[in-house]
């Protein structure tokens, strides 16, 4: 038993941390987030050069074959630095679907471009009515000769403004909420029949609702098995859940330490507010909860790397706990920062908004807790 990082992992951590301090500070991030595309090709190229984009891909596909722990180290450091580049979307969702599909061989050139930082991809899976049910899918893909015709609407597609390609989750059979009968299609973002309604999320992400109007995709564009994409989607979403939980742990570390520091400086009634017992205990609780979140994260990534039979259980528990603790730490950070916590100028509020977005993404705490209960208690 050992919870230390390897030397390589420590180097990875240090390199992200150096990057977010020296190259990607809060003001630079703000400019990128406020730009039209919401991302920076320059920064993304650096990600590629530093090898970060290769981490999640197997060596056979030109990646680094990183472990769950490696990915955790990377994401935690991203969280601490409030990195908003679409790593999860391009590398983990889009890249993950291609890389882990049974027909990944077909997509090696795309994976190569992803790793090189030359391409962005998004996963279009949500719909207006779907909320947190991944397979509540109305978008249809109808076979026509050697092609499929896509029709329908996908919502809140991450990084849609800046992406080159989409993987679309569509129904090829079954009824609206069936797991059986969903398939994945790779399509150019600019293909004919696609139109975007772009907007922004509170954490700065550029997203869009996308409508598909008789969009023709060839049989070659099918990712994974026809009708049977559910397993692949669940696996990839589960890994992405862990990744954003690791990011959240980094975010929480920043929030609790910044709050403690602020409380030492900020005075009220002539004494630092950090000297009030009630606030001391609240910050002690922030620390304890942060440590608990970190422990469950360790548990989860270890179970993934060790192929234990608790992976599914751990991931559902982790996502739930991160949601709960995120609300607590985020709320306390704002409260203790007083007026400063609710300004757009200070970074605190932006970290909190990212935590809130993470809670919702891939199912919020109430949703995952009920799935956890189903898993554990039947």
């Amino acid at each position: 038993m050992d919870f230390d990082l390897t030397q390589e992992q420590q180097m990875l951590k240090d390199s992200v941390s150096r990057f977010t301090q020296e190259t990607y500070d809060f003001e630079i991030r703000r400019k990128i987030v406020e730009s039209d595309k919401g991302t920076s090709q320059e920064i993304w190229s650096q990600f590629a050069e530093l090898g970060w984009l290769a981490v999640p891909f197997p060596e056979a596909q030109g990646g680094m074959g990183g472990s769950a722990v490696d990915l955790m180290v990377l994401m935690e450091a991203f969280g601490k630095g409030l990195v908003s580049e679409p790593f999860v979307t391009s590398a983990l969702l889009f890249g993950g679907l291609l890389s882990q599909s049974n027909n990944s061989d077909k997509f090696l050139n795309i994976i190569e471009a992803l790793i090189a930082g030359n391409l962005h991809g998004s996963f279009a899976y949500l719909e207006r009515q779907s909320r947190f049910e991944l397979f509540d899918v109305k978008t249809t893909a109808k076979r026509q000769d050697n092609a499929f015709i896509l029709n329908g609407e996908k919502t809140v597609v991450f990084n849609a403004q800046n992406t080159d390609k989409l993987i679309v989750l569509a129904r090829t059979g079954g009824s609206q909420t069936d797991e059986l009968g969903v398939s994945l299609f790779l399509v150019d973002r600019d293909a004919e029949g696609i139109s975007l309604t772009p907007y922004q999320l509170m954490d700065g992400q550029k997203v869009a609702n996308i409508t598909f109007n008789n969009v023709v995709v060839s049989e070659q564009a099918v990712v994974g098995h026809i009708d049977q994409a559910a397993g692949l989607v669940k696996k990839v979403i589960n890994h992405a859940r862990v990744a954003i939980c690791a990011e959240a742990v980094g975010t929480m570390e920043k929030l609790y330490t910044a709050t403690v520091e602020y409380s030492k400086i900020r005075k009220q009634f002539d004494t630092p507010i950090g000297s009030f017992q009630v606030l001391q205990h609240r910050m002690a609780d922030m620390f304890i909860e942060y440590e608990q979140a970190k422990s469950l994260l360790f548990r989860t990534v270890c179970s993934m790397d060790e192929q234990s039979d608790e992976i599914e259980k751990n991931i559902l528990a982790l996502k739930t706990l991160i949601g709960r603790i995120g609300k607590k730490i985020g709320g306390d950070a704002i409260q203790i920062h007083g007026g400063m916590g609710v300004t757009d100028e200070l970074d605190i509020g932006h970290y909190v908004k990212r935590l809130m977005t993470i809670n919702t993404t891939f199912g919020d705490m109430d949703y995952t807790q009920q799935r956890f209960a189903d898993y554990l208690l039947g």
Partner: protein
Amino acid sequence: MHTSFSDEELAFRDEVRAFMRENFTPDLARRLACDKTFKDAQVEWEKKLFAKGWIAPNWPVEYGGTGWTVAEKFIFESERSAAGAADVMPFGLKMLSSVILGFGSEAQKQRFLPKILSSDEWWCQGYSEPGAGSDLAALKTSAELDNGEYVVNGHKIWTSYAHYADWIFCLVRTSKEAKKQQGISFLLIDMNTPGITVKPIVSIDGRHTLNEVFFDDVRVPVENLIGEPGKGWTYAKALLTHERSMAGVADSKRDMREIREWAKQEINGGKPLLEDPLFRKRLTDVEIDLMALEYTELRTLAKAMKGQGPGTESSILKIKGTEIQQAMQELRMDLAGYYAGIVPGELSPEDTGHEFGSSAREKYMYGRASTLYGGSNEIQRGIIAKFVLGL
């Protein structure tokens, strides 16, 4: 012990209800919700209340008040809120006016009250400073006498709607020798005076209601001082208590009705969220707290009808009222799911796919501050421990 209203009170309730229905139109509500049209719409609404004679329930009749009983004031407030109608801007009509009425000169009453009543002059409140939040006694903005005028220098912060205001009422330090709280005076300043700069603070919800206000050798006539120099703290305290005499139960009840309605429409896995057991648990937690708080508010009201209080009840109302509001904001956020994150820009709800997501987030974000203003909940608990429990 009973909770019934008299026939006269019930008739009054019907009159208020009818007035709200007729005058607070959906169009007005829409314009109030939009930053660009907010001020004009607010003035329009206040002038309707002014025309009806209902703009200032707490003022004495001779200055334009309504002469209502405590019960009538309560009924008015409940009906306004239940109808979803906007409240008046509090700075002139509720806050400053009570100070002027209590401590101002006759000349000040004649000069300022009529334009507050008619909403022709808008006010903002200059209390907080970067180094003085809940602890107002630490404020530094100075006003020094020079040739029959005060010369004001300093920096106020978190000033709501300063960018719309014609006037600001300020706490300023007029003496450095006196003990901290005794050197503070209450001064009225025309926002058009040279030397005043207003700088917007963009809130976490992306909107602009807060500001910083800088004073650089701003000259203010001495007749704009309220009462005696050095007593500003006393006047301000009277006002702070006033600020906390209601818990916003009527507003919260309306919000809960909306949340229930939305939870009926929001579907997950084919079932409305209103049928989701965890959501039901969270929703009823709040509902039950609110049912209790409604009667805590009524108990305070019943005492007020006898001319007592509000004393420490106001701390309970503040703490529980804001906790309930935050719980509702969280429910609303979680209800909206992904759509709570939407920054809509120019898009309509039809485009983004959700009717209440964005407003849910704005309320949530802005609401994080509600346990901070007017004395934080920590300070309120301290007040209860000291003055109720004798600790």
